[in-house]
């Protein structure tokens, strides 16, 4: 029997600490599991791999699983982190005349297409009485967005952590607003359907391990920042800001969370980002942790 | 196989080589060749017995090289057929060798490699001997690119001579050589031909050369064979100044 658990992680997130602390190996190896860690540059790539069955478990922001589900990827929401609305924001350059979200009318806003910040922008504009079509949107990956933002090609840039903290620190950029009271901005733990059905115990073990590490993070912000620094390639002080902007912990998937995620999916469907309407509940593993 | 078209014909004779060798006869039967609309050779009939040494003369552009290419199987006749040995020529002949009008040396092989290209075992020794024969033993390890025109031609000749032919087709092999070197090459070719007895077809512009070397001289003109005469002189012919030969010479020149 193949008892390999293949976990996909990104450079910034709890999983990298789980890996570093060897917690999961401690929990699962005695039961005959081997753990295989694979790094991905971003959520979509991770789910791409999960879709074809190359990865069993991983973590991404709220947007990628919506697209994956729309594409028919057999994935299951197995856990979620607490909301982190402060971990994403609309940035403008230091000397920008723009003061409020409403000022964005007719301006060029850069963002990563189909990501959590895409939703943030829609909701923020809505809250400010504007509609999505009132702004000029330029789709840019975080890396390109930063370059374009600094070049002055963008009036505003919607971005998440840790890029957010880094950009603020480097350019003195100002936040028009963060996600507070507008969006939840959660991070999801996802597993492939086969893995969830075939090995629920392992899923639970992983989530437990993550939760333990999350608890530890909540106590040791600065140490976490130190640990992230080399892999992310940012100074620890900046990462510390990013880490401080949210709390950590694994929560179960509740109907409220499903509803919130469903709202995002519906907006994306309206924006024609996904071809078909989807039901998040179909892919949720409710009520456990 | 009638001689209806060619103005002069001789009957097929027995091969005259002392060594019954792998020499093959050549029979050309009603053969024509056109390039597009341009007819080059018209309804040619020719029979060359195995081992014979035939010289072909004719004006520039009259189709001599084309004829050799057809015999070698490098080109296809528009009509008629060519039989070498007992096989109709449809593609390349395994034992027919052709010395082209241009030297065609492989630039990436040294001189000795070029000479030995057609030989398998013992090629190096055979090639060295042949180079010695053509007077280029000391150039064996040069690239062909640095040779003079005449030297290149001699390398090509050496290559043809060591290639163990059944039929050897030579397209102006001595054109770039001075009189003395040319004389040496004549003797060399005659000797090797006598030793191996292959059938030889030599294109030349020099009628004396034809008379010096060939059993038979064929003149091509107006797409056909204008003259086909035997040269009945004892070998080896050095100075051919007798009256009969001079008459023959004038007769050939008149037909060209």
């Amino acid at each position, binding site marked *: 029997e193949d008892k390999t658990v293949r976990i996909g992680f990104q450079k910034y997130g709890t999983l990298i600490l789980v890996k570093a602390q060897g917690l999961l190996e401690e929990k699962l190896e005695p039961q005959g599991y081997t753990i295989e860690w694979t790094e991905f540059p971003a959520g979509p790539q991770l789910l791409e791999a999960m879709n074809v069955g190359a990865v069993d478990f991983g973590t991404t922001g709220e947007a990628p699983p919506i697209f994956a589900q729309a594409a028919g990827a057999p994935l299951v929401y197995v856990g979620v982190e607490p909301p982190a609305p402060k971990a994403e924001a609309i940035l403008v350059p230091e000397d920008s005349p723009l003061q409020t979200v409403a000022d964005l009318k007719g301006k060029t806003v850069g963002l990563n297409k189909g990501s959590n910040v895409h939703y943030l922008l829609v909701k923020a504009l809505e809250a400010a009485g504007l509609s999505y079509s009132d702004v000029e949107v*330029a789709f840019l990956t975080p890396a390109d967005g930063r370059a374009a933002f600094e070049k002055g*090609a963008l009036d505003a840039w919607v971005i998440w952590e840790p890029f957010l903290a880094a950009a603020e620190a480097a350019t003195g950029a100002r936040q028009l607003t963060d996600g507070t009271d507008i969006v939840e901005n959660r991070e999801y733990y996802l597993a492939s359907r086969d893995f969830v059905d075939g090995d629920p115990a392992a899923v639970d073990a992983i989530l437990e391990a993550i939760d333990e590490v999350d608890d530890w993070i909540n106590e040791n912000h600065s140490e976490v920042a130190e640990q992230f620094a080399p892999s992310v390639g940012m100074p620890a002080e900046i990462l510390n800001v990013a880490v401080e902007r949210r709390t950590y912990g694994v929560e179960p998937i509740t109907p409220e969370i499903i509803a919130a995620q469903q709202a995002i999916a519906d907006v994306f469907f309206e924006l024609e980002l996904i071809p078909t309407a989807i039901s998040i509940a179909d892919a949720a593993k409710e009520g456990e942790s | 196989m009638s001689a209806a078209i060619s103005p002069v014909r001789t009957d097929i004779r027995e091969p005259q080589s002392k060594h019954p060798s792998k020499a093959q006869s050549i029979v050309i039967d009603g053969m024509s060749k056109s390039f597009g609309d341009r007819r080059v050779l018209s309804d040619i009939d020719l029979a060359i017995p195995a081992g014979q040494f035939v010289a072909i003369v004719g004006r520039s552009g009259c189709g001599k090289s084309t004829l050799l290419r057809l015999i070698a199987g490098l080109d296809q006749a528009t009509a008629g057929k060519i039989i070498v040995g007992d096989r109709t020529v449809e593609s390349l002949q395994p034992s027919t060798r052709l010395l082209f009008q241009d030297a065609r040396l492989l630039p990436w092989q040294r001189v000795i490699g070029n000479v030995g290209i057609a030989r398998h075992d013992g090629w190096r020794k055979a090639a060295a001997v042949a180079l010695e024969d053509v007077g280029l033993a000391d150039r064996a390890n040069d690239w062909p690119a640095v040779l003079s025109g005449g030297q290149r031609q001699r390398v090509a000749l050496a290559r043809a001579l060591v290639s163990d032919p059944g039929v050897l087709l030579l397209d102006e092999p001595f054109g770039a050589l001075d009189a003395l070197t040319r004389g040496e090459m004549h003797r060399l070719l005659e000797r090797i031909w006598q030793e191996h007895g292959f059938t030889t077809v030599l294109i030349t512009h020099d009628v004396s050369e034809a008379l010096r070397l060939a059993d038979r001289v064929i003149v091509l003109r107006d797409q056909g064979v204008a003259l086909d005469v035997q040269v009945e002189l004892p070998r080896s012919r050095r100075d051919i100044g007798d009256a009969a030969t001079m008459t023959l010479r004038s007769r050939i020149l008149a037909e060209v």
Partner: protein
Amino acid sequence: MLNRFRGGRSAVLRTLAPWALPLVLLIAWEIMARSGLIESRLLPAPSAVFAAFWESLWNGTLLTHTAISTERAFKGLLIGGGIGFVLGVLCGISRPAETMFDSSMQMLRNVPHLAIIPLVIMWFGIGEEAKIFLVAIGSAFPIYLNTFHGIRTVDSGLIEMARVYGLGRFALYWRVILPGAMPSILVGLRYALGIMWLTLIVAETISASSGIGYMTMNAREFLQTDIVVLGIIVYALLGKLADSATRALESKALAWHPAYQATERTTG
């Protein structure tokens, strides 16, 4: 006319033969997809791709994307190809120019486009210029390399001849060196036409909202395999088109060349 008519059947065969392999693969793929051997989620059946094709053709998005990409591609090719050609000619005919530029070109050639995107954005912003710039540098190198190589390997005997017959610099290049280098330059063009599209997919990740690179990468991001496969097929067809165009150009420009005549004779 008569000739054409007579050769009709084998001519048709000859035209179709190159499509045999793609067709066989296509059919095998459809069968595997239908029989469930390939999950359609992972690789949609050709019929599904065709449906996607039909729809995007119908609603005009495919044509819009392709048209926009094509414009970018050719602008970039014109600029980059032009620069590559000029530099190739320069280095090909002048040793000092070679010493000066060739090494740098060989180094730059190796720099991945993906890596320089941040720099490109800083120089050119996120507009069309950035995309065209990327295509330009992508297509400059193959043209450069092949022009250079082509010129260097022109038969030196012919150049000597031309010089001894008093051809001026311009006539020498125009009548001897360029025609002699032409087969190689056209191979360079073939490459450039390929690279042009390849670069575009990278370029169209910069703030694009149109173009077939955008269409494909966007679909990839959202795991819409049918659109990804559709994109791949469009690329392949564009490649085939470029290839046919170059072939036509070759058989015109190289009518004198035995190797290309032969091709003409048997394939056309």
